[in-house]
């Protein structure tokens, strides 16, 4: 049994819109284990993004416990949560979210700089881009990149500091199937080679086909948790 990185217990999250309270998560339980390539799926409003935000220390649960790497996030200050995000988590957003005034290389380098990396960070950033076959794009700014290229650079940025857990919110939502598949292959490669854990929220059947585990949400609760053969996708493709 692999190490539990994320332990979500009886988590509730309410949003208040005027006088209306929206129960986004209603007593949700989930464990994320080291090496998971986990897709969280479900209809709109089921709580996928909310769950991802709670795991990513971007938001705070209304009730229950969210533990990441053994730390109960509700006990962490704003600064400690930011530190956790910086040092142990990687994020890939639906819209590419690169800093528009920085080149691909500088975007990756920026995260390393935030972590306090010294003069070696440029080389490290370039090596990440090269590893992900993005070296040729290093000098381009986001507006000079296609959507697929931007998202791959965003992944490079997310994994540059070798985080233990990468959270991706609908990473393929704006990509065509060819780019989406390239992105997923890249992330799977990172998981296999660098022992990273990936959690996606998605609607995309392609992501589900690549996932080693698919958790389905409905109305803020887990309704199914399916462990798949991690090589299933390659097997299907080979056939």
């Amino acid at each position, binding site marked *: 049994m692999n190490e539990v990185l994320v332990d979500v217990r009886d988590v509730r999250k309410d949003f208040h819109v005027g006088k209306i309270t929206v129960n986004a998560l209603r007593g949700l339980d989930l464990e994320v284990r080291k090496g998971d390539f986990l897709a969280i799926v479900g209809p709109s409003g089921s709580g996928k993004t909310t769950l991802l*935000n709670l795991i*990513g220390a*971007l*938001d705070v649960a209304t009730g229950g416990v969210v533990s990441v790497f053994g730390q109960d996030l509700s006990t962490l200050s704003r*600064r400690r949560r*930011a*530190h*956790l*995000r*910086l*040092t142990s*988590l990687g*994020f890939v*957003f639906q819209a590419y*979210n690169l*800093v*528009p*005034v*920085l080149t691909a290389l*500088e975007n990756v*380098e*920026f*995260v390393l*700089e*935030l*972590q306090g990396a010294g*003069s070696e960070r440029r080389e490290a950033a370039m090596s990440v881009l090269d590893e992900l076959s993005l070296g040729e794009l290093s000098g381009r700014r986001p507006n000079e990149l296609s959507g697929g290229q931007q998202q791959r650079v965003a992944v490079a*940025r997310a994994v540059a500091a070798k985080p233990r857990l990468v959270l991706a919110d609908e990473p393929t939502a704006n990509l065509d199937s060819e780019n989406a598949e390239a992105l997923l292959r890249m992330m799977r490669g990172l998981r296999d080679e660098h022992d990273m854990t990936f959690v996606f929220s998605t609607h995309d059947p392609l992501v589900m086909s690549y996932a080693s585990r698919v958790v389905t949400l409905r109305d803020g609760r887990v309704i199914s948790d399916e462990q798949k053969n991690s090589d299933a996708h390659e097997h299907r493709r080979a056939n």
Partner: protein
Amino acid sequence: MAVSSTLRIAWRNLGRNRKRSLLALSAIAIGQFAFLAVAALMNGYGDDFLDSATGPLVGHIQVHAHEWRDERSIDLVMENVDAMLAEIRSDPDVAHASARIYAPVLAALTEDGFMSVVVGIDPEAEAHDSGLLPAGTPRGSLGEGSVLVGRGFARKYDIVPGMELAVVGQDVDGSIASGLFTVADSIGSSVEIVNSLGIVMTLDDARDLLAMSEDAHEIVIHVRNSDVIDDAVSRLSAAPTLAGSEVLPWREVVPQIVAMIGMIDAFLMIVLGVVFIAAAAGIANTMLMSTFERTHEFGMLLSLGCGPGRLARMITVEAVMLGLVGVGIGSALGLVFLLATSQTGLDYAALGGGDTYEVAFKGIQMTTLVHPRLYASDVAAGVVAVFLTSLLSVIWPIVRIVRLEPMEAIRT
């Protein structure tokens, strides 16, 4: 290097919305240019005014008999002036000292008389840049009944060299004083009383006319450096030969001019305030718009673990950069204005379509031709003002950023 990347990001962010950045830069640059142009003109005007004030008429220090300044009575003289001058000139800070005699008289060319003032001077002692007879003025023919008259005075009464001028007045004893003098030439002077009323003669001729011995009404002193005026006044006040006289710095002689210079400084502060407001409005607007537009981006950066402090620093550097580039452009324009006008001068009258003319204020003649002057402190004042304004203008955006929650910002 966090600093270099912060600078790089700030610089590139200024280029994201070029129109808006250019508008803000223009506002700041125009503000700084306006401040420097006004400062240069006011400095030129003020410095000319000060030079005139501390020039031929008033000097840096004056010595008189007590109450002479209030009464201007011809008999309120200082005695033993030669001994006083010798002591004054022995002071190491004194560059020039000259005695003068002033006496209102009636002058006449024919049977018609007109009001005039006899100004008795020592031509040698007045022959310096701040004297009554600076280089180039005809003084060789002064003395032994030969006089110079003010140019305005000569023009008004059609006096030309060679004419004989009858002078009638009152001597120090109260008796009638009279004499006949030959006009050697006319002189232009920045001293209004000399220019429009003056009959300039040697001290000896004036003393003969007014029945004075070694007396004079005034000693005008110029020191080597205006910073030592007060020290020189203290020393001279304690000098034995000057014990019965009043020794005054120019500020006490012409307080109106001091007030006017103070007014110029106050005016400059008002203009500086306007620059402040223009810069603040430009930078604050730009930074506010910029931070509102980039809320999503800030949310993303916060999600990545970037601290609010780092974001605040980025915004601050951006604002300071915007301000300093703007103030740099404005300063460059101001220097171009200075280069273009400082030598030839700028004529207020010509701007209005007229000819250069001179006006008198408190006995000092001023011209409408101003030679703009700028000091490093003027440029620095604008730079510091805009720098501070830049810092102030980002307070609100920074407060907003510091309060941002990553997810709320990303949803924006």
